[in-house]
């Protein structure tokens, strides 16, 4: 299915996007479309396997109930706020045949659901005279939006097949007498576990926009994909038992703990025993580069804002290998969202600032559940295998060549 999607994308040069039509889009996305996608918006625009594709006896996958968009979602159908990357749309404009029809592949939406409106054709807002419009239903009509014309780099990225991986690990349910979280909005201490489905590749930012690759960034991802296809996947930090970076660690569906005081907010991940130390007192900042980077943080109201940089090596943001260079900055905005039952979500918004691989900063968001019933972590003793001097410990993986120019 991924190859079908890819050829469709590369043929047209454009792909429709459901952006964050979460309530409608998430349910529909489960059918068979590279264009429709469920939440998170940055997850691969990829269909979950249908019941027929599963081994017999397996229960069908329910539509994710985690489809609600994170707070701060853009109004749907609005033109992309960032506009075109420098240089504007490709000179050739739209490819022959115009924009794709969007919506569903042959077969249409599942029965019982209303048909989606056709996408609004993309119109460069600068190409028409400005006029005053009311924010009425006509202007904000719920539609599938469309991407602006892809850059050459985005075309490279769009042609890379996407694994249809989607998995949701469910932590144990909380008992009625489970410990409640502190009502202090600045107290993040606790055990947290992912609240969104695990996806193999981040395709879009939190606004549903395609990742703004530079050509170097797209080529790195492409080379990683090609190596995998050739049966020679590249090594990365995770494969070599090194801390793989916050986004990978946070996405991999293992719990993490947060301990904090006035000087630091310390994340302890089960996975790789990775640590992310958000330092509030600059005197405590450890010197030098590290796999997880070092981070100075400050409070912006009840949101903790941290700037992580100083990576020892580039990161893989996800399993597919969406790259971040070692000179990147990751800006986290972290807050606790509590609807009053003291079983909050922890929201971590991450902005990737990496001019080497991306033409502009882009942002993803993750939410994590309050999980006081999971304080005992599994032991992560990967050195026992990776450190074995007697046998190849690379799991058949090969070193990645140095970064592309």
């Amino acid at each position: 299915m991924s190859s079908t999607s890819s050829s469709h994308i590369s043929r047209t040069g454009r792909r429709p996007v459901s952006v964050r039509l979460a309530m409608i889009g998430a349910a529909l996305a489960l059918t068979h479309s590279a264009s429709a996608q469920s939440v998170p918006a940055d997850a691969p625009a990829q269909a979950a396997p249908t019941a027929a594709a599963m081994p017999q006896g397996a229960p069908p996958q329910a539509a994710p109930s985690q489809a609600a968009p994170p707070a701060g979602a853009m109004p749907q159908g609005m033109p992309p706020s960032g506009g075109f990357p420098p240089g504007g749309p490709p000179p050739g404009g739209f490819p022959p045949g115009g924009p794709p029809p969007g919506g569903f592949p042959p077969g249409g939406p599942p029965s019982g659901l209303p048909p989606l409106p056709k996408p609004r054709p993309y119109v460069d807002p600068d190409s028409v005279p400005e006029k005053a419009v009311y924010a009425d239903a006509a202007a904000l009509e719920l539609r599938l939006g469309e991407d602006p014309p892809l850059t050459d780099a985005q075309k490279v990225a769009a042609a890379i097949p996407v694994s249809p991986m989607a998995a949701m690990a469910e932590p144990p349910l909380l008992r009625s007498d489970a410990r409640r979280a502190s009502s202090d909005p600045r107290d993040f201490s606790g055990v947290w576990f992912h609240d969104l489905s695990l996806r193999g590749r981040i395709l879009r930012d939190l606004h549903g926009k395609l990742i703004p690759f530079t050509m170097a960034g797209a080529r790195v991802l492409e080379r990683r994909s090609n190596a995998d296809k050739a049966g020679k996947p590249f090594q990365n930090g995770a494969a070599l038992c090194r801390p793989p970076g916050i986004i990978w660690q946070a996405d991999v569906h293992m719990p993490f703990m947060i301990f904090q005081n006035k000087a630091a907010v310390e994340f302890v991940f089960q996975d790789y025993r990775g640590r992310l130390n958000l330092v509030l007192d600059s005197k405590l900042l450890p010197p030098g580069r590290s796999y997880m980077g070092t981070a100075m943080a400050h409070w912006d109201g009840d949101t903790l804002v941290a700037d992580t940089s100083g990576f020892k090596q580039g990161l893989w943001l996800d399993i597919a290998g969406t790259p971040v260079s070692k000179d990147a900055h990751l800006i986290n905005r972290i807050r606790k969202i509590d609807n009053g039952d003291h079983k909050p979500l922890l929201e971590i918004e991450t902005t990737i600032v990496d001019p080497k691989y991306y033409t502009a900063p882009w942002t993803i968001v993750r939410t994590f559940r309050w999980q006081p019933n999971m304080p005992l972590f599994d032991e992560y003793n990967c050195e026992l295998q990776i450190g074995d001097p007697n046998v190849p410990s690379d799991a058949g993986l090969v070193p990645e060549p140095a970064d592309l120019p």
Partner: protein
Amino acid sequence: MKVFTQAAVVSLALIAAAPVLAHHSFGAYNMNTTAAAAGTLKEFRWGAPHSSLVILAKDKAGKPVEMAIISGSPLMFSKQGFTPRDFKRGDKISVTYHPNTNGSPGGALASLAISGGRTFSDSEAQRIAPPAAN
């Protein structure tokens, strides 16, 4: 309480399974081929990021070779009744496995048999490998 316990067990399964998927694909193994080897167990390593075993065997030329065979989560072994104490250094062991595509000794576990006749079948690998002609 019972419901809670079951939920906890299932979730453990998922936590255990996810990293297998997350850390690498099975692209490094030739899942269309199954090879067999027998030898003695040097080590059985449970857990992160996946379980693996090291077998002292002999290659085609009769030369001693250490093979690392990667397998899935501890949960799979647990479901088939194995515990860490069932795997002892020096035990006779035979395995079938999907070889490394890079040609180095070892690969991804398909099944194993230990002394006493107990057997294990890697259900994760089974789902990937073609069912016939192995």
